[in-house]
């Protein structure tokens, strides 16, 4: 498919997914009512459900998915490893450890988020300090440091889960699996998504060159050192913003870029916006399922990103090229 066509198709998917998120839920609202409420908002229950409950959550879901998918693209270029996903550098592990520690001590939402932020920043600082020594980026060291650190976080998280009293366990599990029911305002996440996308799309030529390897990129005159640092911090910031909004929603950052590559989108000038759109729509759809499938029971969105995403990716992988 021509790239502009693909982008418009994805933009329609995004709008459709957001409309679906407004339509479905435990409170029955018809498509006509949704239209009405969008065009002529009249104070009432329907308006409250749409404007105060469903829309903020759908926007948060979209920002979350867009950030995770973008972060996945950036890390796959940086580490030149197809298995790289936003959580490989230990950012989510650090955030989860911070959040669960706060939850263990019965902290409220604001404190939990602050603790998650502190944990994520701590993880970024440790990985960066250990792997960026003497000004040389050793990508294997970066990858291994992230993986080793993640293992340590996983161990500590398991410890907290074992020690935690029964009442707090469910909240912790939701946090670990990714859950958007407590998502606050997504304004900052949207801003970061827009800024990050714009910045890295401007540098998409450099990303394409770097995908051929650092030496090759330097042969073209790409400022490789600075670009790698920008990729690392860009991916880290995007992941932190997404994790603070929705917990560790898995699979989006890994699956979305690969799904697009498998249908032939390799050029980062298209891959970046396409990933953001597809990742956003994907999480919105998964979150709509999470809210509506067993309504009024709410399920963690992370379960559905995996359940919906795995068959799609397996199908694309098994397809003959």
């Amino acid at each position, binding site marked *: 498919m021509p790239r502009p066509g693909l982008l418009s198709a994805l933009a329609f998917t995004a709008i459709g997914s957001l409309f679906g998120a407004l339509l479905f839920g435990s409170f029955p609202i018809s498509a006509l009512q949704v239209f009405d409420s969008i065009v002529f908002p009249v104070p009432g229950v329907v308006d409250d459900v749409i404007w105060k409950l469903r829309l903020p959550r759908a926007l948060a879901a979209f920002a979350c998915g867009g950030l995770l998918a973008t972060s996945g693209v950036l890390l796959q270029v940086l580490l*030149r490893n197809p298995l790289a996903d936003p959580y490989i550098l230990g950012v989510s592990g650090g955030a989860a450890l911070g959040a669960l520690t706060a939850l263990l001590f019965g902290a409220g939402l604001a404190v939990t988020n602050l603790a998650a932020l502190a944990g994520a920043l701590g993880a970024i600082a440790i990985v960066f300090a250990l792997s960026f020594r003497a000004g040389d980026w050793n990508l294997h060291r970066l990858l291994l440091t992230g993986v080793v650190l993640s293992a340590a976080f996983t161990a500590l998280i398991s410890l907290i889960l074992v020690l935690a009293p029964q009442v707090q366990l469910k909240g912790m599990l939701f946090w670990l699996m990714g859950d958007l029911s407590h998502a606050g305002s997504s304004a900052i996440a949207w801003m970061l998504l827009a800024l990050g996308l714009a910045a890295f*799309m*401007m540098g*998409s*030529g*450099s990303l*394409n*060159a770097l*995908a*051929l*390897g650092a*030496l*090759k990129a*330097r*042969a*073209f*005159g*790409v*400022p490789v050192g600075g670009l790698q640092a920008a990729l690392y911090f860009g991916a880290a910031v995007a992941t932190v913003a997404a994790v603070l909004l929705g917990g560790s929603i898995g699979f989006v950052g890994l699956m979305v870029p690969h799904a697009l*590559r498998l249908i032939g989108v*390799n*050029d980062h*000038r298209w891959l970046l916006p396409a990933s953001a759109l597809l990742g956003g729509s994907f999480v919105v759809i998964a979150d709509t399922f999470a809210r509506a499938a067993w309504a009024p029971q709410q399920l963690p969105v992370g379960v559905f990103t995996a359940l919906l995403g795995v068959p799609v990716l397996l199908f694309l992988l098994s397809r003959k*090229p």
Partner: protein
Amino acid sequence: MLRAEQLTIAVGARTLCRDLDLAVAPGELWAVLGCNGSGKTTLLHTLAGLAPAVTGLVTVAGKPLADYRQREIGRARGILLQREDQEYWGTLADYVLLGRYPHARRLFGWAAADEEALAGALAAFDLVPLAAQAYGTLSGGERQRARLAQLWAQDPGLLLLDEPLQHLDLRHQLQTLERVREAVHGTGKAALLVLHDLTYAGRCDRVLMLYGDGRYAAGAAAELLQPERLEDLYGCRVRAYGDGPHAHFIPVI
């Protein structure tokens, strides 16, 4: 076009080349000869600014390497790497277009100059029929030509080619050498070719020999391509058939 002054290069504790003075003028085609591990690739990387020198200064087009801004250096010099480990998922045309990085000014799509450079580079290496094919499905020789075409699309003034003829069939070896000679003698570029085939080395203007122990020899091809010099360089017996630029050198078995 290219100057190296008092250049010393080393890999680990091994000094491969000591106090090299080299001046490559526009329109000059150089062959770089030496045994495996004698520092040919390291020298090319150093001249391209991809590897640090122990001591010494490299200037390209009159300007020290360190003074270049990033994209500018991609227009001044280009290097054909001997190995490329990375898989590439796009088509051959996409791959060749990556060479336009130092010239690209547009965020989306390519400028007319880029499309022209692509068409020229594909035609130069017989790649037009393969343009839409996935790079991953190309054969070894086709990939080598794709790398050459990418460098042609990059269009730098100084060409540093590390074993440009590897994997190529006979016709494409000749064609590639012809393309290099056209670029150098026709458009005033300069080129350094790492070669193992002495017949092709004889078609170059000048020769640089690296002995791998710090010694080097540089001079006119006719002067340096002599059996006794080659025997000294490679450590095996060599016999010459014919003379001048059409001489053939055969190892004595």
